[in-house]
């Protein structure tokens, strides 16, 4: 199933683009998607990334659904 991945800040620079579409197996979790990303872009591993699913922070074990939007959230620095 297809998942849209949005990348911001340092993760966007490493990936080279703001948005990716990634195919994962049905039942895949945030952790599974993370592993795909880490394999393709190993420099993401050092970023202490958190993830959001459909604009809400999500734990690694959250299950994904077709069409979900997952965001890579490097340490934030607002303010």
């Amino acid at each position, binding site marked *: 199933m297809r998942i849209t991945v949005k990348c911001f*800040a340092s993760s966007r620079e490493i990936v080279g683009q703001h948005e990716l579409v990634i195919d994962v197996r049905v039942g895949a979790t945030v952790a599974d998607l993370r592993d795909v990303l880490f394999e393709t872009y190993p420099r993401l591993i050092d970023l202490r990334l958190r993830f959001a699913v459909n604009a809400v922070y999500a734990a690694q074990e959250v299950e994904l659904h077709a069409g979900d939007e997952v965001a890579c959230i490097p*340490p934030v*620095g607002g303010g």
Partner: protein
Amino acid sequence: MGKGRYEITPDPLAVDPIVAQLADPAMGAVVTFVGVVRCETGGREVRYLEYEAYPEMAEQVLKQIADEVRGRWPEIRDVAIVHRVGRLEIGETAVVIALSAAHRGQLFDALHTAIDRVKEIAPIWKKEVWTDGEAWRSEQ
């Protein structure tokens, strides 16, 4: 009461319009926090900052922060949190937080908590561009 305003914007920020938006006849006190781009960070001279956000999520998180603050200090009448994105020069305003209440009471602690939480959880990122390099920076 509780009209709120939670916004990510590329436009320059001003305090008075945000305070005006909180106005209601029973409001007696407003406190604001204004975050400004500094010329220096950790001993390095800053040329400018570049702010980036995940706006759809950030606006939800700003509203969540406002709800947290109002839950903890029920006398708060209204909250506005507006954060700018894009390239910001020294002296420009990056964020404005405004809290209103009937009386000053707990506004000060609530304001302190609100800006701390924005820095902790809002999906907003800051790249510092120094005279001799650049980096994405976080307080975490």
